[in-house]
């Protein structure tokens, strides 16, 4: 029974660990990637700007791109293609998104420099193409990051609870073992066995059972984690590769931590059994 209970705990621990690591990866992705991103929308992008001597045919989009690409506040500026805009609109307009002749603004994906002054940049853009807006993702990224960190904290907390419950399960099992072997323990105690000897015998057996449970739990979590990581792939920093390079997935932290579960389960079993038996033996002279 003990290996099965520990296997269940280990399975939950694997999921909690995966959750914590996924949340950490998401938070890093959002903070590193999207925090410095600004979406610039240019209404009527093909309309000409007020004539300039050096650029008589410049459109509003060209003018905005020129400002962005010469600004020290901007690392990169990339206008989205018609196909990418269509992809963005597809959820709302369906298949007609790319063919419908709607007056769409041009959308530019801008990555800001670390010390960028967003307000000044927005003002400069509005001067060359009136109505141009720059929407920062910072607020949403901040909220999402807090959410991801909360999820991460919950996952680690769940992991801690699982470890404590596993220790309690081991303690109950050890006490049951002590109660059922009380006569034998009193005999070997009377023959001169030390607390360390008796606790060691119990701990050895419990360690073997809990490590087996840990292995079973970790093994049963593998297929579930494969499915979950596949589902989470689009949200991760480095999406998984399918096919021959799928082994690269095994470098992910969860795959490195998973083999430790039997070791940790065994360690919890060993320490809990030792403490439980030694405390129980204190009742003997």
């Amino acid at each position, binding site marked *: 029974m003990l290996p099965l209970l520990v296997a269940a705990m280990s399975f939950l621990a694997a999921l909690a660990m995966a959750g914590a690591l996924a949340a950490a990866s998401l938070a890093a992705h959002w903070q590193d990637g999207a925090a410095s991103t600004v979406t610039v929308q240019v209404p009527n992008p093909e309309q000409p700007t007020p004539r300039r001597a050096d650029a008589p045919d410049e459109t509003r989009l060209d003018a905005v791109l020129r400002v962005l690409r010469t600004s020290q506040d901007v690392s990169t500026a990339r206008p989205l293609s018609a196909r990418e805009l269509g992809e963005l609109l597809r959820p709302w307009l369906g298949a007609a998104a790319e063919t419908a002749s709607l007056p769409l603004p041009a959308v530019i994906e801008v990555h800001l420099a670390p010390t960028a002054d967003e307000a000044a940049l927005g003002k400069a853009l509005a001067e060359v193409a009136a109505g141009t807006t720059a929407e920062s993702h910072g607020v949403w990224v901040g909220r999402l990051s807090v959410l991801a960190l909360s999820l991460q904290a919950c996952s680690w907390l769940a992991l801690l609870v699982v470890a404590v419950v596993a220790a309690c399960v081991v303690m109950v099992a050890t006490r049951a073992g002590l109660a059922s072997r009380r006569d034998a323990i009193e*005999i070997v105690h*009377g*023959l*001169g066995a030390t607390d360390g*000897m008796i606790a060691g015998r119990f701990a050895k057996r419990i360690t073997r059972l809990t490590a087996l449970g840990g292995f079973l739990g970790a093994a049963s979590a593998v297929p579930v984690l494969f499915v979950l990581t596949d589902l989470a792939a689009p949200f991760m920093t480095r999406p998984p590769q399918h096919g021959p390079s799928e082994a690269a997935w095994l470098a992910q932290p969860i795959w490195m931590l998973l083999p430790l579960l039997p070791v940790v389960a065994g360690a919890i079993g060993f320490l809990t059994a030792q403490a439980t038996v030694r405390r129980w033996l204190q009742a003997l*002279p």
Partner: protein
Amino acid sequence: MIRLENVGLRYGAGTKAGPEILRDISFYVAPGGFRWLQGPSGAGKSSLMRLLQLALRPGRGRLMVMGTDIGAAERRALPELRQRIGMVFQDFRLLGHLSAFDNVALPLRIARRPEGQIRADVGEMLRWVGLTDKADRRPAQLSGGEQQRVAIARAVVGRPSLLLADEPTGNLDDGQAVRLMRLLGELNRLGTTVVVATHNDALVARHPGPSLRLEAGMLVGDG
């Protein structure tokens, strides 16, 4: 070897403490000595034997065993002393999942003796009690007398300084009882201090020796 001075014992502690089972017990057994411990059932013989086996500590008074004050000794000091005490119980107290060989080997394994020495010593003990051909049997596969012989072999295999036997003939027929008493006498002649608790006056009469007499938890005779 054994010295008791006004020893008292009660089970339980604090508000759950029961009445005193043993009161003001004082006696001395020299190294290599022999004592019968007599008295009717309920006189406190088994409690006194458990005190001498270090399975209990005295509630009051002073108990010295092999030069150690048991009441004052640290708990971690007692296992080493217990390894020098052999104990034979009326109900044998063998471990049911172990063979006769492994039951006899138990004190030596606890004392961390080398496995080669264990095999030799246990083999010799099983020959001595006539159970060589039953070394692999578990207690449930042995008769009462055979189990008692395994228990005796276990008690003496470590060549204890002190051998305690609590009603050792209680489950034996007369022939086995006589043989057991010869074994205990032989060990005593070899220098082991022996204390045998019994309520069987006929047994004591057949094997005369110095005797302690307990009644209602008090020592009423020593000599």
